[in-house]
């Protein structure tokens, strides 16, 4: 509550003339307002902390991992985790069927998952926004054709379409990422187009047009920044979806190929040991769940902070 009064004080509630010296730049004020709503959601802050830890793990993987992720040990196959009888401190989370340290593989695996998420989202967002801007701004038959094509992509279950695309392109991490980006981008096209269509009739756009701004400038500089809120939320959701879908493709044998320590691929290799060595199966999935959950928590917080309808003030 004290926060609100502080904010009110900053905004000069009660005084008719705001003190020009105490006014902050609008950008700074927007960020503060954003953080205020975001941090109200405790889950979102927790998600952010966990996600930051995952990023740090990925960056510092060579320092953190006790072993090389690819180093096999014939004398230590399927060693259980340290707290179980037969476990050893050398392999904290145990080893897999060919004696590789699971903890080290998980640590290196975080690099793959984050890399997949970043690449897929960057590709899907930039392609989706570009197509959506054109569809929304140009309108007419261009818009109709683009939206029908997006409908077609959305008519297939995303994982099935990704699976089939990978079958065409050949299994592997790069092709899996291309396929996932392709099935995720229609959401960005639809969102961008919808916001562009509602924004382009506003007065500030007309004003910019009158001043002589080119269509490209109108689209990218004038209109786009005002459509970013829902796009950021969707990008967060796509980030977690990309990680899940890539892991699923890896699990089906169509994503990253062994011996890559990608979490989904690790699960695929572990499937035959579900009756005998629970740790081989449990930890990679747990890593996926925790990462995806953290990102989705952040996504919920972003929606609260960026969606004006959700603001309760």
């Amino acid at each position, binding site marked *: 509550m004290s926060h609100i009064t502080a904010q009110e004080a900053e905004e000069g509630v009660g005084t008719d003339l705001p003190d020009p010296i105490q006014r902050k730049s609008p950008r700074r004020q927007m960020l503060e307002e954003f953080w205020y709503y975001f941090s109200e959601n405790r889950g979102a802050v927790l998600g952010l902390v966990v996600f930051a830890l995952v990023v740090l793990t990925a960056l510092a993987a060579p320092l953190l991992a006790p072993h090389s992720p690819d180093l096999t040990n014939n004398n230590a196959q399927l060693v259980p985790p340290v707290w179980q009888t037969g476990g050893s401190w050398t392999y904290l989370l145990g080893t897999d069927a060919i004696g590789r340290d699971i903890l080290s593989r998980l640590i290196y695996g975080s690099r793959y998952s984050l890399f997949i998420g970043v690449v897929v989202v960057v590709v899907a967002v930039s392609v989706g926004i570009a197509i959506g801007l054109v569809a929304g701004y140009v309108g007419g038959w261009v818009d109709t054709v683009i939206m029908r094509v997006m409908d077609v992509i959305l008519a*297939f279950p995303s994982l099935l379409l990704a*699976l089939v695309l990978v*079958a065409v392109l050949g299994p592997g991490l790069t092709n899996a990422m291309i396929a996932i980006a392709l099935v995720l981008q229609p959401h960005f096209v639809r969102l961008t187009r919808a916001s562009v269509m509602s924004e382009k009739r506003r007065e500030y756009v007309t004003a910019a047009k009158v001043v002589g701004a080119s269509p490209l400038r109108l689209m990218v500089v004038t209109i786009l920044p005002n459509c970013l809120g829902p796009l950021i939320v969707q990008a967060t959701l796509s980030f977690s979806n990309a990680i*899940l879908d890539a892991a699923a493709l890896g699990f089906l044998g169509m994503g990253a190929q062994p011996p890559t320590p990608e979490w989904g691929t690790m699960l695929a290799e572990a499937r035959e040991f579900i009756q005998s060595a629970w740790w081989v199966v449990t930890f990679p*999935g747990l890593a996926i769940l925790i990462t995806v959950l953290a990102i989705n928590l952040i996504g919920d917080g972003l929606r609260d902070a960026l969606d004006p309808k959700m603001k309760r003030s």
Partner: protein
Amino acid sequence: MLRFFLSRVLVLIPTFIGVSIVAFAFIRLLPGDPVALMSGERVMAASRHAAIMHELGYDRPLYMQYLSYLWGLFHGDFGTSIVTKRGVATQFFTLFPATLELSLCAIVIAVGLGVPAGVFAAVKRGSWFDQGIMGAALVGYSMPIFWWGLLLIILFSGVLGWTPVGGRISLLYYFPQVTGFMLIDSLLSGQKGAFGSAVSHLILPSIVLATIPLAVIARQTRSAMLEVLGEDYVRTAKAKGLARARVVGVHALRNALIPVVTTIGLQVGVLMAGAILTETIFSWPGIGKWMVDSVFRRDYPVVQGGLLLIAMIIMLVNLVVDLLYGVINPRVRAK
């Protein structure tokens, strides 16, 4: 009303054409030509290759090939499997009941638990119950279901020994397929224990497949209820002195369900994607496993036909949901 129906059906035509083009293009985008794909590793004389290309019509212009492909589709010809030499559509509809049975059970679980959970969470907004349900829903929504299925197998099949690891029914039972639904067929067969066996095989895959739709429906129901509970007519109903259960259960829920119905419809695509993973884990002989197996066997006509049939089913379900939406919400029809 008829105009509304027709307009919704007409919108599907361009999407259908697009979907069929994707399926048509799929086989032609693969490296190597269709005849080389069919012959596999075998070496073929160039003249024989050309003869087969001509026989199957692959030497005609692309638009002619597409039109004859469409013509075949309208006559129920969705291609022939390279491996089994059987028609893709026939195979699809023999396997489809297994996927349908699994999906129906999953959607019953998802709606049966998700709607009440969402309603109670909205009514008790901010309580421990609300936070617990929404926390669980977010975990469910973030779940890699292929891993979740493996965990359930470890626990219920491995440690506790309560459920079988996979398949639809124990090998001890054999009876003719009448409806294709194992639950009904096992009852019809009159064999002792058959129904129990079918249920025990169905339960884990249903839970796994239901997980994500359940989470989505619970979240959507809660937010729709919260919106509706703040409306004037709900306050009026309360002010009239109606029982709380009636206000929530009748006045609020009926209107909150409108967006929820759409959400349930959208879950069909999620279910089909989930079926790919769930059926693979539990060796469930349905469409999802068939598609994955066909991709690995390089049985591309099956992948092509299955892709198209699945997309058509999803489009059909979305159409039905759209029409239902028009029936329960007259405002949509007016537009």
